[in-house]
Structures are given as structure tokens and as C-alpha cells.
């Protein structure tokens, strides 16, 4: 394992510290317990948005703290959800009295820890609503499992719910927008290589030179099945098909197309995937109205990508376009 780190156990703390140093006008970093808040939090009258989860998915979530998106991010250890004693103070710190929305990726650990924190926050008089993100169509039979995972769609939920909060929507409304995004987004991912968790020291799975993992999540876990390597168009078709089927994308639909890198894949390759995905969508009569291409929700240095499709309506489009000012996503300001 070769990584630009000092001590595997200090990775999150040092990285978050560096993040705070690099973006001093944007965020405040609290150490022990670790969480990151928007510089001007709590924003008076605004619903607070808190997300978090294991580290290793950067820029998610800290990179999305700022105007028009998250008020706080709570990073756990690498691939380990944060604990209530981090989530609670982050929640309290961004509560202006309008309540707080927790955006939680659907993993047992995240759900349980945010659940406890929400309960504790309610006990302190803060209203909390939880938006559970579970956009990963790779998880089949999800009724008989821990359910679908929250993956690429999380970024879109955070952006759009963030815009709703910023324009002044109340607690229920912000949560409802977040849920609407989640209901209209689906994602599927592929890994060309594994990733190495710093404290583990060896790759999260072993993959032959001519194999890829289809249906991976963002934690270096193996996917649903392993297939021989294919070309980019073939892989794109394979990822997109279940996404479109599950969403029921039909002719005339307008969508946001999000091709996300898992961390170790060159941007140029993501655009090759994007190109094919646009072709496929056009073939179905759907129009790509908005795009996002890049490394936004990653699995350390894993090679691969995920494709997310979000069905847009006028309101979601408007909220997507609304100004955002964070370390990793910025426009209109």
C-alpha cells in the first residue's frame, strides 16, 4: 500500500484539518468530535442540512458544505459511519430554530448512528427529519436485504435539498424535496480495480487483469457479479439499462445525467462513458437537460464509475441551477 498519508489512524483528522486550512472562508472545522460546518452556520431562519458517513468518499460530504448545499458534514473513520456524539453537536450547531434535515445514505451503520443522534437532538428540542438515500439499483431483492444503498444520488439530493433550504422552504418541505430527488434517481456502478483502506493495507478485493465488478457500492465491497472486461460502451449500456428500467424512463423525459468517477479513473474516461450514456438516452427519446461529470462520491482510489440518472421536473431543475458555493461544487456565486 502506497498512500500520501502519515498514520493510517490519523488520515481523517489530518485530511479534515487540511480541508479547513484550504477553505477557511467557507467552513469551520471542529475537531474532537470531528465535524465541518458552514462558516456562517447557523443561518438564521434556514433549515439546517446535515449529512455524513464514512470517510473515503471525498469530496462527499465536506466538499459540499456551503451556501446552497449542506450546513454540516460529519465524517466517520474510513468507510465507517460517524457516531452520534459527532452527529449530535453538528446538528445542534446548524439548527437556527427551523429544524434540521439529516441526509443519510442507507447503510445499517449510517442509519443506526443518525437515528440515535436524531433522537438525542429531538430530546434537546430540535426537530429532525431524515431523508434516506437508496438509489443503488445494483441491490436486488432489496426487501430481503439491508435495502438499496445510497450512492451517486446522494450528491444530487444534497444539492437540490440544499437549494430548497436556501430559498427558505420549511423543514417538511426540504425533506419532501430531498425525498422526491431520491425517488427519481437511480444509480449503478462498476469497479475496474479495488481500493485499499488505509488501516487494512491491502486491496478490498482481488480482481484479475481481465475482470470487472458490476454493481459495486462505494465501500470497496465486491459487486453483484464479476464479468470479463468490456469496452466503455458495453459497460455503459450494462450500467444504464437497469437504471433506466427501474426509473421507467420514457420518451420525452428530461433528465440529469451524472457520471461519477470512483476516484482512480481519469476524467477523460468518464467523458467517454458520458458520451455513450447520452446516445443511449437519446435512443430512448429522453433529453439530457443537465450534466455532472467528475469525481464527486468516490471509493478512495478505486478505478471505475457510476452512472446516475435523475428524472427532472421544472422545480428540480430550478433548484439544481440555484447558486451553490462549496469546495467541490460551485456556480452562480
Amino acid at each position: 500500500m502506497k498512500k500520501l498519508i502519515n498514520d493510517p489512524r490519523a488520515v481523517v483528522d489530518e485530511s479534515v484539518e487540511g480541508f479547513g486550512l484550504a477553505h477557511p472562508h467557507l467552513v469551520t472545522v471542529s475537531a474532537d468530535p470531528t465535524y465541518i460546518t458552514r462558516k456562517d452556520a447557523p443561518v438564521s431562519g434556514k433549515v439546517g442540512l446535515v449529512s455524513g458517513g464514512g470517510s473515503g468518499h471525498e469530496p462527499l460530504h465536506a466538499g459540499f458544505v456551503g451556501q446552497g448545499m449542506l450546513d454540516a458534514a460529519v465524517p466517520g473513520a474510513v468507510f465507517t459511519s460517524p457516531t452520534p456524539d459527532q452527529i449530535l453537536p453538528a446538528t445542534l450547531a446548524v439548527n437556527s430554530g427551523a429544524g434540521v434535515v439529516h441526509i443519510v445514505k442507507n447503510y445499517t451503520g449510517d442509519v443506526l448512528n443518525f437515528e440515535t443522534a436524531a433522537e438525542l437532538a429531538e430530546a434537546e428540542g430540535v426537530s429532525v427529519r431524515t431523508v434516506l438515500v437508496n438509489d443503488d439499483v445494483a441491490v436486488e431483492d432489496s426487501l430481503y436485504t439491508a435495502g438499496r444503498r445510497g450512492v451517486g444520488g446522494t450528491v444530487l439530493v444534497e444539492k437540490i435539498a440544499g437549494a430548497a433550504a436556501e430559498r427558505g422552504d420549511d423543514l417538511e418541505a426540504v425533506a419532501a424535496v430531498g425525498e422526491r430527488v431520491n425517488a427519481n434517481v437511480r444509480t449503478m456502478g462498476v469497479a475496474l480495480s479495488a481500493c485499499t483502506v488505509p488501516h487494512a493495507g491491502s486491496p478490498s478485493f482481488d480482481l484479475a487483469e481481465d475482470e470487472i465488478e458490476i454493481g459495486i457500492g462505494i465501500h470497496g465491497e465486491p459487486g453483484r457479479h464479476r464479468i470479463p472486461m468490456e469496452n466503455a460502451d458495453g459497460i455503459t449500456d450494462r450500467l444504464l439499462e437497469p437504471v433506466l428500467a427501474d426509473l421507467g424512463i420514457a420518451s420525452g423525459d428530461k433528465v440529469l445525467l451524472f457520471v461519477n468517477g470512483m476516484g482512480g479513473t481519469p476524467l477523460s474516461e468518464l467523458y467517454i462513458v458520458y458520451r455513450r450514456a447520452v446516445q443511449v438516452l437519446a435512443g430512448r427519446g429522453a433529453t439530457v437537460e443537465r450534466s455532472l461529470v467528475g469525481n464527486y462520491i468516490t471509493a478512495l482510489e478505486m478505478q471505475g464509475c457510476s452512472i446516475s440518472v435523475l428524472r427532472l421536473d421544472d422545480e428540480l431543475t430550478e433548484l439544481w441551477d440555484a447558486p451553490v458555493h462549496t469546495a467541490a461544487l460551485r456556480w452562480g456565486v
Partner: protein
Amino acid sequence: MVLDVNWAVKWLTLSAQAMAEHRVELIELDRAIGDSDHGENMDRGFQAVLDKLAEAPPQTPGAALKLTAMTLMSKVGGAAGPLYGTAFLRAATSLGDSAEIEPEAWATALAAARDGIVARGKAESGDKTMVDAWTPAVEAARKAAAAGDADVLTVLVAAAEAAEAGAVATDPMVARKGRASYLGERSAGHRDPGAASSALILRAAVGAAA
């Protein structure tokens, strides 16, 4: 042998030792069907428990377990943090402030712990989770405790052995809860890391009484 606070502290100390010793093994189990962090999380959590025990030595077994519960909740994270946290909290509540634990009380505390895990995680037996270590342990402990002349060591041993067998029994299971469930059929053929760590902890309880 009585299960008093000294035993409890020794149990937790040996548990911490076991987590440190088996850290890599638990990481490897989690690497196969999860996200490679279980050993790291448990080791970090139990080291923190040791620190807390040293800072504020508890006066009863229940207090020791409560302190453990709070520490694991705030230091472990992931699925295991809240689940073990709840388990230790329920066990602590079940023990109340009694100074010594009788065989029956221990079986009842284990059951409370298991029920806490189920209440939080909603897993059933056979879902390939730590429940598959705890439920046999609870049953074995109850059975041993119910025997007229049960001494406490016998009960501890029965629970540990059942947990170990339960962990081994997760090998062929297809996961339906937790991170391994995403793998579907591919989860079969690997031991559940949480069941494995549960067995280690219940084995440490024997070591503390020996």
C-alpha cells in the same frame, strides 16, 4: 468464582486484548464480504473502553457495562458501534446495580443484549449477522443456568462455545442484513465478522473468570 466488578473489568480488558489480537483477522473477514473495517473499529472502540475504565473505575458490573456501552457508541461507528452499544446498554440495565451476577442473571443479561441487537438491527437468525452468535449463546446460557447446580463458569463456557459454533455456522449462510447482504449469493462461504467478534467477546468472559 463470582462475577463481580473485578471480573467485569477483566472481561472488558480481555475483550480489548482479543480485539487487538484479532484485529487483522476481523478486517480480513470484513474485507471478504464487507468494507474492511470491523477489526479496526472494534479495536479502536475497546481501546477507548480501557481508557475510560482507567479514568473512572466503575463500582458494579452493570456500571462497567454501561460505560462500555457509551464508549462503544461514541467510538466504534459503523453498524457494529450502535449494535454493540445497545447490547451492552441493555445488559447493563438488566444487571442493575447488583454487585455480583448470578448464573440466571447472566443468562438474562445476555438475552437482553441479544434483544437489543435485534431491536436495533432487525436481523433474524440465519441472516448472517452477530445475532447468529448471540442467539445460540443466549440459549446455551439459559439452559446451563437452568440446571440446578449450575456454577457460573459453566454458564460462561456454554455461552462462549455456543457463540463460537454460531459464528462458524454463519459460513455457508447468504447474508440478508448488513453490508454482506449486497453481495447476495456471493456472501456464502465467508464467516460474518460481527459474529466472529461476538464469539471473541463471549470467550473473553470465560477467560476473566478462569
